[in-house]
């Protein structure tokens, strides 16, 4: 009874870990690989080139050779596209599913025996040309045997442009193999951890295939009737999986031996390969806690919960200085009180030179923290002041509190006096100054939150290159006193660094298309810039209130109901739910406003897109939403989404055409954009 209970909790923990990884991958794309690399560097000796080779994917090599350099050719980076082409994924997938049938696994000498070569050639062509179920062709007796399929699988793996486990990781596998020879304590656990971390660093397509392949090979080696052991299987597969494609025969011999050892280990530990190491999970967990602003029910989640630390299975005895205040320091408060009294007394003294002298003495002796030669245990007022500051909590913590106080209700729907007039079909509002102050302060807090997120994503690879952006929009005539919080933009450096291209008042008024390179395409930036232009556009209050909390929306989408691991249906449904609940039903907004809300949402949805596996490309199948959302779901690039959303906002025909113009310009000029869009659509 007890054991089953503990097993189930283990299982829950495992899935939770995977879930955490998915969530973090979605929120801050580069962070997971960054943490993985850190943990790898603990286990392996990753100096210089070795680390560079491992991290190559993350740091897209954009350096250019010097003009006229004699070594220009040398510097040209080798192709770093490790991902397996989509069509070969499907071929291999079908072969593997066919081979994992129980009667085929029992076949003696599976993967060892060679089948009929002409039949294999035929099978390969047949695979490449047709897309039918493999078992149909194989069921007929004079067609392909299991050995044919097994061999075709091997050739397909061998013909991949890059080995499945990527040659970049070869060095890591080599070092992991040596753990046992070096006599490290619990070498096999370490090796497993290295492999698990490396799996997390692989591209997604590779992971899918490796998982399938390893489970197949594991089944094969578990079956005694086929007389294939893990080593035998590894000998055949290792060169295709791990060795570089261009090697001398001698080098190849050496590498193959190492790779065989590594692959043997992987086959033997196939069920554990795709688990998340507990140490990594602990780091991810604590990082997520720092990101976590509010949970779904609008309550504050405490930063770095001590409870979570206690539950963690790691036997670390790390105690930080922010624990319980010891009695020692409590006892010291008497001194502080006495000092304060003394100081007060001195202050109350009549003004004279003596007082000045005393004060100077006091300041010099007491307020100088930790003067040299002093007994270290003795407390000074300065140090205790310092400590008080420390005890008052982390700065982030404070920041959390400020957010919560800014936004009393979950959606910030606090009625503040506004006046609305309607002229020329445009909404004009006047806000009181308090509102402006309030919104600006909440905005600032949001931005800082984004700051946390983006700063960490800097190192990571950005999801899509976003290129330049053109912004035009009909200015909404305003007469309000709600000054756009420009100072805020300058207050945070981050704000300036974000590709903030205001779609608002500056756009058409300047009649100038501003083009700006955006170095870091990620939706945190978009969210924060959205903050700015929603304020600058002086939209109706409720829109702003909605838009104040895109982070919450994002969390909602990313976490609910199953976070990053949502199925397609759930995903669309939750999106519908959010849109319908907060934009359409509850507030019954006018159409133009609706689409602005959608715009905010769509960006978040766009973020959530990255949480999804590539092959779950969501389609909006029922037409319950308005067109803006439907279109935006089809088009994965946020800029287009934005354009569509905006084109819906304005009822003016001319503006609409200018938007379509804009879109067409984009597709012509921006090849990276086009590519990324193609990439998305092709999956």
């Amino acid at each position, binding site marked *: 009874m007890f054991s089953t209970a503990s097993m189930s909790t283990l299982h829950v923990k495992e899935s939770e870990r995977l879930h955490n990884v998915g969530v973090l991958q979605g929120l801050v794309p580069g962070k997971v690989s960054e943490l993985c690399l850190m943990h790898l560097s603990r286990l392996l000796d990753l100096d210089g080139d070795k680390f560079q080779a491992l991290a190559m994917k993350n*740091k897209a090599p954009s350096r250019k050779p010097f003009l006229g350099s004699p070594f220009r050719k040398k510097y040209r980076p080798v192709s770093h596209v490790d991902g397996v082409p989509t069509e070969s994924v499907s071929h291999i997938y079908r072969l593997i599913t066919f081979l994992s049938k129980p009667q085929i696994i029992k076949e003696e000498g599976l993967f060892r025996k060679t089948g009929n070569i002409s039949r294999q050639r035929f099978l390969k062509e047949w695979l490449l040309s047709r897309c039918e179920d493999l078992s149909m062709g194989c069921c007929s007796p004079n067609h392909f045997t299991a050995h044919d399929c097994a061999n075709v699988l091997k050739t397909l793996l061998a013909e991949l442009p890059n080995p499945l486990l990527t040659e970049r990781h070869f060095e890591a596998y080599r070092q992991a193999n040596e753990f046992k020879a070096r006599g490290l*304590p619990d070498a096999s656990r370490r090796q497993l951890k290295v492999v698990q971390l490396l799996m997390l660093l692989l591209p997604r397509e590779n992971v899918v295939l490796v998982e399938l392949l390893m489970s197949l090979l594991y089944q094969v080696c578990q079956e005694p009737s086929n007389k294939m052991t893990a080593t035998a299987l590894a000998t055949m597969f290792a060169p295709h999986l791990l060795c570089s494609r261009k090697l001398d025969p001698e080098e190849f011999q050496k590498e193959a031996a190492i790779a065989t050892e590594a692959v043997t280990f992987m086959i033997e530990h196939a069920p554990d390969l795709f688990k998340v190491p507990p140490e990594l999970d602990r780091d991810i967990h604590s990082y997520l806690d720092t990101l976590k602003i509010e949970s779904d029910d609008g309550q504050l989640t405490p930063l770095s919960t001590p409870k979570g630390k206690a539950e963690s299975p790691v036997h670390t*005895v790390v105690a930080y200085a922010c624990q319980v205040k010891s009695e020692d320091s409590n006892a010291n408060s008497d001194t502080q009180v006495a000092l304060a009294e003394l100081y007060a007394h001195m202050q109350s003294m009549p003004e004279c030179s003596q007082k000045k002298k005393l004060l100077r003495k006091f300041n010099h002796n007491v307020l100088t923290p930790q003067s040299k030669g002093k007994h270290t245990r003795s407390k000074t007022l300065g140090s205790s002041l*310092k400590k008080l500051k*420390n005890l008052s909590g982390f700065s982030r913590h404070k920041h959390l509190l400020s957010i919560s106080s800014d936004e009393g209700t979950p959606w910030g729907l606090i009625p503040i006096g506004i006046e609305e007039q309607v002229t020329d079909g445009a909404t004009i509002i006047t806000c009181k100054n308090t509102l402006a102050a309030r919104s600006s302060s909440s905005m600032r807090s949001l931005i800082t939150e984004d700051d946390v997120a983006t700063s960490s994503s800097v190192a990571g690879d950005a999801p899509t290159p976003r290129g330049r952006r053109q912004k035009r929009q009909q200015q909404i005539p305003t007469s309000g006193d709600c000054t756009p919080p420009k100072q805020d933009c300058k207050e945070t450096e981050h704000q300036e660094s974000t590709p903030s291209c205001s779609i608002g008042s500056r756009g058409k008024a300047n009649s100038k298309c501003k083009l700006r390179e955006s170095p870091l395409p990620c939706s945190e930036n978009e969210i924060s810039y959205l903050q700015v232009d929603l304020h600058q556009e002086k939209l109706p209050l409720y829109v702003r209130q909605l838009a104040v909390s895109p982070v919450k929306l994002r969390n909602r989408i990313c976490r609910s109901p199953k976070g990053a691991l949502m199925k397609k249906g759930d995903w669309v449904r939750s999106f519908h739910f959010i849109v319908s609940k907060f934009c359409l039903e509850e507030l019954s907004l006018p159409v133009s406003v609706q689409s602005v809300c959608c715009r905010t949402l769509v960006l978040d949805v766009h973020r959530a897109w990255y949480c999804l596996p590539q092959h779950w490309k969501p389609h909006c199948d029922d037409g319950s939403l308005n067109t803006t959302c439907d279109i935006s779901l089809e088009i994965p690039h946020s800029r287009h989404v934005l354009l569509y959303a905006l084109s819906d906002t304005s009822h003016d025909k001319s503006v609409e055409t200018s938007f379509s113009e804009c879109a067409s310009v984009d597709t012509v000029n921006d090849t990276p954009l086009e590519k990324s869009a193609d990439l998305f659509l092709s999956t």
Partner: protein
Amino acid sequence: MAEYPKVPQYDAIYKVTVIGDSQVGKTTIIRKFVDQGAPDHYPPTIGVDFGLKDIVVENERCRVQIWDTAGQERFRAVTSCYFRGAHGVVLVYDVTQVKTFDNIQFHLAQAQQFTADNQPMIMVGNKSDLGEQRAVPYSLAASYAHDMGMPLIETSAKTLNNVDDVFYHLINEIRKRHKEDRSGEPRGDRKSSIFARSGSRRGWCCS
């Protein structure tokens, strides 16, 4: 990997000084951190010794240069000069010997005397695997470390428990403080990034 030019193999270098009484296991901790398969026993250090290890923090390659000082009383005069330019200090005591813990106070005073204010430090209680011989309770050490404003980690160099964590925590702390006062000059001797020019310069003359 021959396709890449010779460049500095790290992005930043951090100097860490390890101090503590003799026989607490300073050398062992360092050796184990640098090479996990290193032996357990070493003769007393004379003067000073070094350990180098490359680690990766936040996608940056950091080289940790660890100065292993002599713990014996007669080397005290020499030890003091190894604090110059250190980015962090590791104070080691032996959980099975109260005397070494008492002497932490002395070492701390010495470190504070010779280093800049607000220097990141970390306290390490070594030999935590000898549970039954423990003489310094964890709570006592933790409260003392708390008073001194530094974290405490109990390690066991023999079983490799927490040895990595000591240096990772310290480097993280150093990096955090550097980021905070980035407005001033950064104290880490930052080398140029991976694709530095120096390597390719070489190509000009000797091609």
